[in-house]
Each structure stands twice: as C-alpha cells, then as structure tokens.
C-alpha cells in the first residue's frame, strides 16, 4: 500500500475515535500518502475555536494544526446537513464536494474507518 484514506464519521470529544483517527493518520505521514476524510458527524471536527481544557481532553483542533502536512478533506454535503456551512472552519482543511471526496477514497489503496 502506498496510500491510505482514513474515514472519520464520528463526532469529536464524545468518543476517542477522532483522536484515534488523527493519531493513526499522523504516524503514516512521510511513509505513505495519507488522507483523513471527515464525513457524516466527523465534519464537526472542522469547526474553528475548539477549547477542550475544561473537559480535560486533548484539543483535537490543535492536533490538526500540529500536523499541517496532513491532507484533510471535509465532505461538503455532510457540512450542509449539519448546518455548519456558515460556521468558521479550521482554515487548513480542504472542502470537498461528494465527487471529490469519493474520488479521493477510490484513488487510495485502502480505506480505514474507525
């Protein structure tokens, strides 16, 4: 495998899955062509201004910033369904329409979802 697509469709903070997907994507950077695709409830991770200090959890937005070279695609239809289209999003992420999102999945050697 030369490329891997991590699919995250779970909301951040409510579960360890978003943290797990970010870590898994990060360790393959450099070695493989890595894309993290935010889909369904996963797109909530794209909202700017997260501050998880009072929850005692790692700030997932900070992790996204820390791995600036990670390609993160945000599925636009999922954003729209969740009324997030007008919200301020983390600027390092890439919006992808349904076609672009699926093409990225299809052109990766494997898809891993958590």
């Amino acid at each position, binding site marked *: *495998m030369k490329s891997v697509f991590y699919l995250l469709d779970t909301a951040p903070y409510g579960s360890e899955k978003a943290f797990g997907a970010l*870590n*898994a994507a990060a360790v393959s950077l450099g070695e493989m062509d890595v894309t993290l695709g935010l889909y369904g409830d996963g797109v909530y991770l794209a909202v700017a201004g997260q501050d998880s200090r009072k929850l005692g959890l790692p700030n997932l937005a900070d992790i996204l910033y820390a791995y600036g070279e990670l390609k993160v695609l945000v599925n636009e239809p999922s954003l729209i369904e969740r009324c997030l289209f007008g919200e301020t999003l983390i600027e390092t992420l890439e919006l992808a329409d349904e076609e672009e999102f699926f093409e990225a999945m299809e052109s990766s050697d*494997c898809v891993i979802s*958590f």
Partner: protein
Amino acid sequence: MKTLTIVLTDGPYISEYAEIAYKLAGAALQQYKVNIFLYLDAVHIPKKSQNPSFFTNAGQLFSGLAKKGVVIRACARCAGARGYLPEEEVLQGNNCRDYFPGVRITSLYELSEMLSKSDRVISLSR
C-alpha cells in the same frame, strides 16, 4: 507471499467484529501472511482469563491465530490507557502479563509499517 492486514477497534462480545476477524484471518492464513492490529477498544481482545459462558472466548481465538503465525500487535497508547502495560522482556512472543501468548504491545508506528507492507487491508469497526 501476499499480505493481509486487519485493523480492529472494538472489544469482544459487545460487537461481533472480533469473531469476524478471526474467521477472515483463519481463511487467509492458509495462503497469505496475516497481520492484525488492535486499536482502541480492540486491545481488550487478547486479555487472559476471559470466561464467556454464552460466547466463544475471543482471547483464545486470537491466541490460536498467533500460534498459527498471524502477527498480532496492540497499540501501546490504547493498551496503556486500558490498563495493559508492556513489560521490558518479551516471553512467548508476548510482552504483557495480562495477555495471551503471541500478542505484543507496540507503538502505533507498527500499524503504518503493516499497512505499507500489505496488499489488502480490512478495517472493521462499529
């Protein structure tokens, strides 16, 4: 020889994915190299002394796979969070007292290694 890697994220019993992974790995190991990476709750699967009265013992199933040559690794962060701590020494291919033989706790980088050397990858999660 081609290589298959299976990535698991769920614990035993609550989901059927440990059993499905066992069946997939069992079918594959006759012709292929098989890796299993245990991530998130899946690090509970190889715990010793499971005694499920109504289900098949998932730890024994995976221990059996390891004996047949399946490479099984558990994420160190996920395992540590859940109370499975690695020892310095590796005995019987195992570095955790709480685990069945043949399952080793390793860094998450091992997942990336496994993926890059695989021909196919299957991920199973709730």
